[in-house]
């Protein structure tokens, strides 16, 4: 595939993710911090986000499975997830966490379980999309970024096409 076309696909896909609200401006900030001296920066931050989120979602599942639900603990976990999703620009995950915290304040276990399902769903959605955009953990699947680099191109930034 032509480099130009790949680059346009990458940008179109990124734009789509922005339009659909999966990502917000913070993700662009991450891209700005990536350069020749830190070529894997976005991938590294997003990978950390995946690890951290999976840990938190696991802790939340366990916490909500207890006889006596510790709502303070749940709030603390959700606060952390809200923070990290905000830091990478995962807007829908962040918004779901905000709603989750409100339900947690009401000390409503049923409500919290529903919120947890929602967060998990949003997390999996954004994870799939980000993996498509960046280098994926499954080696045989080529992400758009890998294809561009393999074709000898540079990863385009939104401003390149303005």
């Amino acid at each position, binding site marked *: 595939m032509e480099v130009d076309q790949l680059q346009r696909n990458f940008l179109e896909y990124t734009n789509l993710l922005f339009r659909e609200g999966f990502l917000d401006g*913070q993700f662009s*900030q*991450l891209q*700005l*911090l990536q350069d020749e001296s*830190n070529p894997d*920066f976005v991938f*590294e*931050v997003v990978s*950390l*986000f995946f690890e*951290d989120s999976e840990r938190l979602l696991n802790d939340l599942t366990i916490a909500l499975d207890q006889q006596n639900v510790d709502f303070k603990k749940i709030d603390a976990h959700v*606060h*952390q997830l*809200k*923070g*990290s999703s*905000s*830091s*990478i*620009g995962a807007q829908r995950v962040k918004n779901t966490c905000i709603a989750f915290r409100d339900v947690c304040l009401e000390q409503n276990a049923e409500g919290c379980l529903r919120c947890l399902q929602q967060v998990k769903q949003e997390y999996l959605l954004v994870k799939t999309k980000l993996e498509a955009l960046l280098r994926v953990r499954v080696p045989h699947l080529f992400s758009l970024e890998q294809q561009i680099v393999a074709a000898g191109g540079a990863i385009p930034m939104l401003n390149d096409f303005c």
Partner: protein
Amino acid sequence: MSSGLATEMEFHVLAVDDSIIDRKLIERLLKTSSYQVTVVESGVKALEFLGLVDDENTNSNCISNNRSTHHVEVNLIITDYSMPSVTGYDLLRKIKESAMLKDIPVVIMSSENIPSRINNCLEHGAKEFFLKPVQQSDVNKLRPHLMRGKCRTQNQQNIINKRKPLEECLSPDRTTRFNDLALVQ
């Protein structure tokens, strides 16, 4: 040498955050400004690094004996507010209570926009309060605090150690920038 004082000085920033993602972010942001960066994951680790061992039996101003032998100079501390055990606010208070460290500028970061929290931190000596996610534009605000801090420390250090006067550390064309300091004659 034509380069001024600002380019010769290397600022060392200590960043404190319990979030692994935010640690990565703040480290990268600080490094783009060419600062030397040390990142720690808790208030406790920050206190240890600064030589302020949080011991219930001793005065909080007590500095461990090792400090004089491996002095690590920190020019600015940027810390998250919400951390378990020792919060960013606790850290701020301890630093300002310490004779050795009180002049180091402290900046607080928080994901929550709570005016009373912000005011409280600023009233207790924080130089800036950044809302997360922290941006490059926020980090750009650190430089003036670093410039001011370094020069004051240099001045005090010279007086204490009776080293060469400050004017020898500054190239002549730079002295006029620091007009709130008296040069040691």
